[in-house]
């Protein structure tokens, strides 16, 4: 064990080195928006799938400014605004096309130069661009007024081909500015961008395309399959982050629920819960009040040292001949479990000092206790006085 302890820093250094080597092995595609490395595909809950049946090549139009086609971007104040180009004032100025007089075309063949998908020859109709509004608050104008270039959010569009979802912004890119770490940074509260419900003020999380969940890179809050079991650290570190989406009944449904939560204790957990308690009772205590939660059932079912009268009594511990000497080891390794049933007087019968405390004087204290006992005695003498007389030599030494 000591050898393992000495080599622990080396192991950690090796692990960190391996992690860094692995993570440096791949990089961002050049043209991708910021954050595409963390989120290779844009969120479908934020940007519902769109249909853009166009053979438009951004890279072949790199000489033009973005605003030439998307002129509404500088004034758009809502995420749902359409920024599509008006072909009669954009495409037609360079291409030999006439969108206004499309019905007069002798054949629909020229349409296929730019439009893909089915073309209605008789009606001269092309497949429409379908772009559902994003589930987001966003103002292009606010960003354009701050001289934030399009590529800052959309990547190097001029190097890409046909319009695709890859050009949509990623949240990891947004928080490059919206981090809230300084007074001058862009606002960082979730509702700056995400839609909230009017009644609860929390984020809207259910959309027709799925459920909005935290991304993988966010504060250890990614809701992976085991998150329900391991969420305590994320909650302890920043419970306000959780509160953006979850309210108190959500917590109470498991922590004070009327039914056993299947994701925490699936299957016949009742049959193996004792083993879990022996392995890590502090984890049980984080949700369960052991004296009342465990005690009620254990005593009523007779799985206790002092169960109801009759055959249910005294069958929790090994036989007395074994347990009298063996209980110390179990108590030292898992005292939390012991005190979920036992009261102080169960221990003071032997461990209190002799005299009118009625004990046998068997000290339960550790080897360094004598040097550290004065402060606790001064701050709260109650525990000392349970086992020692006020003027006993032991307490005098502590003073």
């Amino acid at each position, binding site marked *: 064990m000591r050898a393992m302890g000495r080599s622990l820093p080396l192991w950690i250094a090796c692990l960190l080195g391996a992690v860094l080597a692995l993570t440096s092995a791949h990089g961002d595609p050049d043209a991708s928006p910021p954050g595409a490395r963390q989120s290779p595909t844009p969120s479908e809950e934020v940007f519902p799938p769109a249909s853009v049946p166009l053979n438009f090549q951004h890279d072949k139009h790199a000489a033009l400014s973005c605003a030439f086609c998307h002129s509404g971007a500088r004034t758009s104040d809502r995420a749902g605004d359409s920024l599509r180009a008006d072909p009669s004032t954009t495409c037609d100025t360079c291409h030999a096309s006439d969108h206004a007089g499309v019905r007069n075309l002798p054949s629909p063949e020229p349409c296929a130069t730019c439009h893909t998908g089915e073309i209605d020859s008789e009606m001269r109709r092309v497949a429409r661009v379908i772009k559902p509004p994003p589930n987001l608050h966003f103002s292009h104008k606010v960003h354009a007024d701050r001289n934030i270039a399009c590529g800052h959010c959309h990547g190097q569009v001029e190097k890409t081909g046909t319009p695709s979802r890859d050009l949509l912004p990623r949240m990891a890119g947004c928080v490059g500015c919206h981090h809230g770490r300084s007074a001058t940074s862009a606002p960082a509260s979730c509702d700056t961008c995400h839609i909230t419900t009017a009644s609860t003020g929390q984020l809207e999380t259910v959309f027709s395309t799925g459920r909005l969940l935290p991304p993988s890179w966010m504060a250890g809050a990614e809701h992976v399959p085991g998150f329900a079991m391991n969420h305590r650290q994320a909650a302890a570190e920043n419970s306000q982050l959780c509160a953006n989406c979850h309210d108190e009944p959500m917590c109470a449904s498991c922590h004070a629920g009327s039914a056993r939560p299947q994701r925490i204790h699936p299957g016949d957990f009742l049959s193996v819960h004792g083993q879990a308690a022996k392995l890590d009772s502090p984890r049980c205590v984080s949700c369960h009040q052991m004296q009342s939660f465990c005690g009620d059932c254990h005593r009523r079912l007779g799985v206790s040292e002092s169960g109801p009268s009759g055959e249910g009594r005294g069958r929790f511990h090994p036989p007395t001949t074994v347990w009298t000497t063996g209980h110390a080891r179990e108590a030292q390794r898992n005292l939390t479990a012991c005190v979920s049933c036992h009261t102080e007087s169960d221990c003071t019968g032997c461990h209190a000092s002799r005299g009118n405390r009625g004990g046998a004087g068997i000290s339960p204290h550790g080897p360094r206790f004598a040097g550290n006992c004065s402060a606790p005695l001064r*701050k709260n003498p109650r525990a000392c*006085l349970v086992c020692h007389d006020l003027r006993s030599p032991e307490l005098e030494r502590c003073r």
Partner: protein
Amino acid sequence: MAGRARWWRIACACIFASPAQAASLHATSETTLQSSSASGPWGQEISRRRFTQSLFVVPRGDMGAVGFSVVGLARFETDFGVNSALPDSARGGETNPDVAGGAFYVPGLQPSQFELLWLYARLTDFWVDGTECRIGRQPLIDLLGYDALDGTRWVLPLPVPATLEGYVGLKPRDGRWLSLGRYERQGLWWDRQARGGHRDLVEPRPAWVAGGAIAASGPSWLRAQVLFRHAAELGGTTIDDPLTRETLATLSDSRVAEQRGAALLGARSASVGSVTVDGVYDFFAQKAERLRVLIESRDLPGRHRAGVLAERIEPTFAADSIWNWFSQKSRTATELFAVIRLPRDTTVEPHAGMTLEDGDGTEVGWDSRLYTQTPIAGGRLDLQAWARGIREISSWTIDVGAERSLLGDTWDVAVRAHVMRADDNLVGIASSSKLSAGYLLATGFYPVPTTRVGVAWEHDGSDVAGTRFQLLGTLRVDIDP
């Protein structure tokens, strides 16, 4: 003048922050009926016939930049199963110490109880953006654990990238939901000396509590937290002889109930991963209660994740308790975990852990878990499997479930099945091996979008405990005018 104007805004917000002025109201009512039984390894059985009604109400609104809300969560619960499994000669014996000589009496067992879990008012952004004030019975969730506070809590952003948090109030010690065992009442059980007469409960008392925290976000990759909590017992107490009830000592002064602090230091990169070190120190018990190191990579090729968590724990107890001064061995748990992303949005999350006891080092426990989530037509397939053990006990469990997500439809359904084998060393059981299998069927119906009626049926059988059933009915109504 500016300071006076700010206080005027706060005063206005407090005055007008009443439900009658609320811009919106959200309420959720949940009614649950549960019928089940649990069997002990020796065949004794208890029945649960529980009725639970909870009500969650949140009026909220805003006055300009100032947001306000009131959060209330109350619950009534009753269990008609209490006393129902007793023989006629002991009718009512689980709640009445005078029946059958108190042989079946369970101190603290309450067949019916009403709990006001939370009731607090909250003001936000009244000073500058990010300011928050809560007054009332509220949750306190931080690195020191989960607790309840009857008092007020303030969060103030600082000019530097950090927030300051402070709270003061009364801390209930009887352990409301989410509270730690360290604040439980002592004395549910008879002991050897007192057998023949039941022990009275030591009723919990509130303690004054004050605490503060500072959390800094620092540069983009650094974050830190420091917090400290001090609680004091106000009233005096006596130390009584457990047999004769004679008072042996009396304490009349206020005394420390809790003195704990916690710190966290973390470095995080969205593209690489994170290293976090945090710990809790009990200044009264003079012990490092917890020390945790988490190293995690978030961006392995293929967006896989992997990491290691090492945690050293040595539990401490309330300052009044004698248990702090019993020698204990710390335990160190090490866990390796990964999140592996497969095609079709399939995620596999294996865990493997080991717990080592300090000291003689003979006690070794292990715990390995596997979760998978696989999308299926219109829903998701879950698989959980775990194996765990300590020295003389081992078990493995497989749990398979399928859930169909509800996306605009009027129904949902879930099916789960499990098979499990475990060895146990409970004294007195002829066979130490258990084999258990069971299934769960659950369905919900939405007559209107804001109301769900659900029924769940669970049936499992164990070769030790026999066959068990559970029927669960829920009615959840969201009121969202």
